[in-house]
Structures are given as structure tokens and as C-alpha cells.
């Protein structure tokens, strides 16, 4: 079936480096450094990535960081809470723009 997203394409992520290998190299090194244990644990970083993946609605990232979260020892309960955090910020972000709507309505209204 034709679709814009193909699960197998995740494994071909590196293909994007073919036309710009130096940029890909820099990105890969930076990316690997970001996810190393630091002030945050690898598990915490994986859960943040999982939440962000849902916010940016990247199916590749959701697959990848669901697996990574499990392999870093996160439980399905923790992963579900992380997605709720993403959803709450996303929903709250929409809702807080309601103030802008109210401001505009107030400006137009008598």
C-alpha cells in the first residue's frame, strides 16, 4: 500500500547524509552526545524524547523511543505518563491561546 511513511525508512535515516556528509557527521555526533548519561539519566532522556516525539507526531521517533524507553528500563506506566505530559502541554498550549482570542474579541467588541 502506498503511504508517505514507511517503517523500514527509519533504518535508512543515514541516507540523508549522502548529499551532505559533513553536516550528517556533525548531527550524528551531537545527537549521540545529547542522549548520553549526564545530569539526566539515559532513561529520563528517552522519556523526554518519547514525549516530544508525540508532540511533533513523528511516527519514526515514536517507534524508536518506545523501544529505547523500554530498553532503558522505563515501564509502560512511566511511558504513558510521559505521553500525557506531552498531551497536556500541547492541549494547554492551544487553550492558553484562548487568551489571545479573548483579547481580540475584547478589542472588537463594544
Amino acid at each position, binding site marked *: 500500500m502506498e503511504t508517505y511513511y514507511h517503517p523500514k525508512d527509519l533504518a535508512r535515516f543515514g541516507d540523508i547524509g549522502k548529499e551532505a556528509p559533513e553536516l550528517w557527521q556533525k548531527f550524528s555526533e551531537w545527537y549521540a552526545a545529547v542522549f548520553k548519561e549526564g545530569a539526566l539519566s*539515559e*532513561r529520563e532522556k528517552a522519556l523526554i524524547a518519547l514525549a516530544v516525539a508525540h508532540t511533533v507526531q513523528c511516527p519514526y521517533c515514536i517507534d524508536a523511543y518506545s*523501544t529505547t524507553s*523500554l*530498553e532503558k*528500563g*522505563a*515501564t509502560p506506566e512511566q511511558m504513558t505518563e510521559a505521553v500525557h505530559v506531552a498531551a497536556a502541554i500541547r492541549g494547554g498550549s492551544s487553550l492558553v491561546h484562548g487568551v489571545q482570542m479573548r483579547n481580540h474579541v475584547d478589542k472588537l467588541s463594544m
Partner: protein
Amino acid sequence: MALPTLLNSRSPLADSATQRSTLAALPLRRTFEEAIDAAGHAPLRTNEISVLQLNVGKRCNQACRHCHVDAGPDRTEVMRDDVIEAALRFLETSEIPTIDITGGAPELHPRFPEIVIRARAAGRHVMDRCNLTITRLPNYADLPEFLAENQVEVVASLPSFAARQTDAQRGAGVFDDSIAALRRFNALGYGVDGSGRTLNLVTNPVGAFLPGPQHALEADWKRELFRRYGIVFNRLYTITNMPISRYLEFLIASGNLQAYMDRLVTAFNPAAVEGLMCRYTLSVGWDGRLYDCDFNQMIDLTTSVDAPQTIFDADVNALTGRRIVIGPHCFGCTAGSGSSCGGVTVA
């Protein structure tokens, strides 16, 4: 109710040849032999034997979804008397320091107490791979006391500190029974610092992914099992699920087989090769045949042809340095931080 075994459900995978051919047919980036060669360890050979692992049979009161033995209540294979005698004589006349008793539920073997007592009398360290729920059966209620009196190390399976994940892998109600069993072991001093009674837990991932970091998980488990249930233990061992037997069936049925094998191959860690358990273990099957590990045993890969094949002709010198029989499933022991019956193999 226990899940059916592959044998009982007449699955083609009950035949080890089918399992081997299924794995062999998968397109992998490289073979295990190539990976070992690239790591500078080819051909893979054993060192001195430090663990004699007896698999005393496939009978079990549980039928876990990931079981590499295809054990269950309907299995009838139990270690014969002549095999037990030969194995104990081999142990007593060797200097192998540790005997690791596994199954199935090894305690279901009627001669389990005798194996323990003779091994202890010979001054050997004894490990019992216990499924915990066995101690909840009326005929085995005194098992924890027996193990404590004989200073047996208990290596107990518990995939998760959450009931849902544990029961999903091991069967409904297993978590509650396991918690009750762990409390009983704790009451006898098992897992308590300074008691000398060792209680180690084993966790296998509940699904098609690699285990989490053992050290970090151990801290989580100690905190959560104590906070939720007041339970203490010594060490947590994370073990990668091997793509054989009932776990292989799960991988096929869930459409995860190729991706899981690719994950194992990609995660090959050369540093995990040195500590592979096959390099220091001799595995004995219920019928007396010899293997490099319990996983090879379950897919009928006996020791290499130029080494002794049964416990009746076992000889420590002839078995030391033998060539290890390998296959695609071996990637399970070299992925990430490595995996063995004692958890990770890379610090």
C-alpha cells in the same frame, strides 16, 4: 490456567530442527561466526569449567510465554537416576566449584533434595533457579526452609515489580504468589544483608526488546519492591530473551522476529564475548547429553563432535578448551551489556 506448551499444542516449533531452520533462514547483516571473528575470538572456545548446570527436566507448574525450555505441567522429561549419579560423581571428582540446578521447576524432581545435599557435602556452591510459585504448592511448602538449611543460593524469576507485566509473561496470579514466596524467603533471612542467604532475582523483558541497564534497574527494583511490599533481595540479573522455543513463537506471532534479530545483531558487543557463560559452563540435559549452555540444549546442539557427548564419558580435561557450538541465537548473549545466567557480562 497454564498456557499450553509448544509440544502440547503440536506446534511445528516443538521440533528443534524447525527452530534452527527458522533462524537460519533469516537474512542477517552477518553471522555470529563472522561477528566473533571480527572481535578476535574465533573459533570460540571454552575456558576452565566453573559451573556445572544440571537441567533436571522440563516439568514445571508454570508455562511462561518466553520459556526457552518449553517447560510446563504436561512435560514428562525428567533426569534419569543414572544421569544424576553420573553427574554427581563427575562433580565430586572434579574441582568445579558451583552446581546450578535448573529446569523446568527443578524442585519438582523427586531427587532434587538429594542432589543439593550431596553437592553441599562435597563443598560445592549450589544455585537453585526457582520460579517462586513452586513454594506455594502444598507438597513444596517446606522448600524455603530446606534451601536455607543447605545454604542454597536462590535465583528467582520475577520479570517485573508490576503485576500486569509479570502475569502477562508468566501466567495469571503468578505475581501475587511470587510476592508471597519472596516474603517467605525474606522471613528466613534470604536477601537480608549479613544473613549469608542469597536471594537474587532474574528479569527478562516482557516483550520484543532488550533488557534495561542492570545496575539502574536493580536500584529501581530494590526501592519499589521494598516500598510496595517490604521485600528485599541481593542482586538483580537482567537476561536477554533468546529467540528460541516459546519466545520464538511469540516473535513470529507478533511479527517481531526479523526486527528483534536485527536488534540483537546491531547491538553485538565485542566486549561481551569474554564473559559468555558457555565459556565456563557445562550443561547437562535430562537424558545425560552435554551442551555448551542451556539454550543450545533446548535446540539440540550438543557439544562439539570432538568433545565428550554425555555425562557418562565426561572428562574435565577433554571438555576444557573445547570448541563452542554456535548459531544465530548466540547474538542474544552478546547484545548490549551481554547476557548470561548471572545477568550482564560487561560492567
